[in-house]
């Protein structure tokens, strides 16, 4: 009797505890996301009518001359943006973390300072660097001259060949604190006994790092990698601030985020197109999903997590 009653009535308090979160999350995140994905299979005929067009929007995105060149360029640029972060941001983050993990008061100060740009708004960072790199002000040029590299300076943000990498490096400058702090947390979690054993065997700090510590923080490297990958698709703010929705010069800094914005809202003479915008978003969704699944099945499964 007691048991059957319990089975038929789901405890009310559990529902009360879960309902607000499930409701808000479902209504304002899950359903709009599903609706956006669904909309990528439709075309808006007139004001309030839409008709199902199958994969036509996707075909248009990949082949139509109004969309395809932009899409492929944005995709390629996004991967360049990602590569710069993987090759510059994460190794610097690891280096700084390894140096900080030695401990001490002075290092706590460095840790606080290096993490600082991360908490500032991307909009502010974008403007700051625009001013610093502005040839009119000449701050960057003056600094390079001071160290004898004055000839290197150029209007990096203004030239199509260098603009994307410059913007990516600015983003690296801002967010290096995140991999740094994650690596740092993993490194200080390694028990002293392990590193001391290596020291006693005569290994240098350098050898100890690569032979003992590095293998132990492989899981963190995977997490940092996937966070970097997903974060790339949120890089809209920086490019919009520094280069506008048109991601100039000549679309050289156009990434999926800015392409999505332009396609959805339109630009200059072209009208916004919600269904094509939804298609761009759906492609971003698929790419992120692929990345996350690859991480889960190829990296997270193979890399052993050591219980420390």
């Amino acid at each position, binding site marked *: 009797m007691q048991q059957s009653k319990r089975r038929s009535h789901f405890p009310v308090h*559990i529902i009360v505890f*879960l309902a607000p979160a499930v409701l808000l999350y479902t*209504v304002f995140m899950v359903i709009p996301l599903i609706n956006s994905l669904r909309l990528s299979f439709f075309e808006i005929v007139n004001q309030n009518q839409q008709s199902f067009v199958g994969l036509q929007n996707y075909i248009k995105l990949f082949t139509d001359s109004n969309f395809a060149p932009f899409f492929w360029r944005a995709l390629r640029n996004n991967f360049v943006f990602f590569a710069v972060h993987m090759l510059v941001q994460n190794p610097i983050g690891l280096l700084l973390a390894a140096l900080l993990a030695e401990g001490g008061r002075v*290092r706590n100060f460095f840790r606080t300072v290096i993490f600082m740009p991360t908490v500032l*708004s991307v909009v502010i960072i974008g403007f*700051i660097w625009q*001013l610093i790199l502005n040839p009119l002000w000449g701050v960057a040029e003056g600094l390079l001259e001071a160290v004898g590299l004055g000839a290197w300076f150029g209007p990096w943000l203004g030239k199509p060949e260098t603009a994307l990498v410059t913007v990516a490096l600015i983003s690296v400058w801002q967010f290096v604190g995140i991999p740094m702090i994650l690596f740092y947390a993993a490194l200080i979690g390694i028990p002293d006994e392990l590193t001391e054993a290596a020291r006693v065997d005569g290994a240098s700090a350098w050898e100890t790092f690569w032979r003992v510590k590095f293998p132990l923080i492989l899981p963190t490297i995977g997490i940092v990698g996937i966070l970097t990958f997903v974060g790339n698709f949120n890089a809209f703010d920086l490019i919009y601030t520094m280069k506008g929705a048109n991601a100039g010069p000549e679309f050289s800094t156009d990434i999926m985020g800015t392409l999505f914005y332009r396609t959805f809202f339109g630009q200059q003479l072209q009208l916004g197109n*919600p269904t094509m915008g939804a298609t761009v978003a759906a492609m971003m969704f698929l790419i992120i999903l692929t990345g996350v699944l690859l991480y889960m099945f190829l990296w997270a499964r193979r890399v052993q997590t050591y219980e420390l």
Partner: protein
Amino acid sequence: MKTSPFSRTIERLVPLVILTIYSIIALFPVVMILVNSFKSRKAIFGAPFEFPASETFSLIGYETVMERSTFHIYFLNSAIVTFVALILTLFIGAMAAFALAEYDFRGNALMALYLSMGIMIPIRLGTVGILRLMVDLKLVNTLTGLILIYVAQALPLTIFILSQFMRQVPKDLKDAARIDGASEYRIFGLVLPLIRPALGAIGIFTMIPIWNDLWFPLIIAPSGKTATVTLGVQQFLGQFVSDWNAVLSSLTLAMVPILILYILFSRQMIRSITAGAIK
């Protein structure tokens, strides 16, 4: 002995040198803006690397910003949105986390999976759908709209992390309360203060992206009345590109609140990440 005192000194010094150089790189652009915002236009260009002296000191930029902009409205908007979204996220998130951590009900694992999906998928991908929903609900250009989106965005990670902390609360404590006849809601009230450190850490990490977001204010609430600081700065600076005094001082004004918060809380913030990782 393998290492000489000399090489040991080197081994000690090199890391400090690298860290010092990188700290300068991290600080330099921000300091340049702060320092130059207090100088006259002539000094900004003539001697950008110098601190303001009595003859170069000028507040003209701040005066322009105060006169021409509606910064106080932006600040108020950002403060309201951030604060309300934060409180809602923490409370609603803690409730859901408690349910997942405390009760072994049917579909618990499935529910946890459903709620944690949102950790990896950026909510921005649903923007087309969100804008339509906001239009239907008449929430375009309202702070309420922004708050609801930010709560939905922050809930998955909040629930995921809080439920791990909730699991660490000793069972004896809750059982003792149950024997005394406390309701489940009362027990939730007992557990909440025990995870205060976790709530604080998540609070900071929820706050920063909300305060700094450009995307949703730009799309959902772009009107002058509802603009947040981030959007306001973006638009204001767009108009004043050539007025360097105004640009530098508005950047400073936008940075200072976050910098003060960061200086006050950086220790707890960093400790919370590292503590979460070690556990």
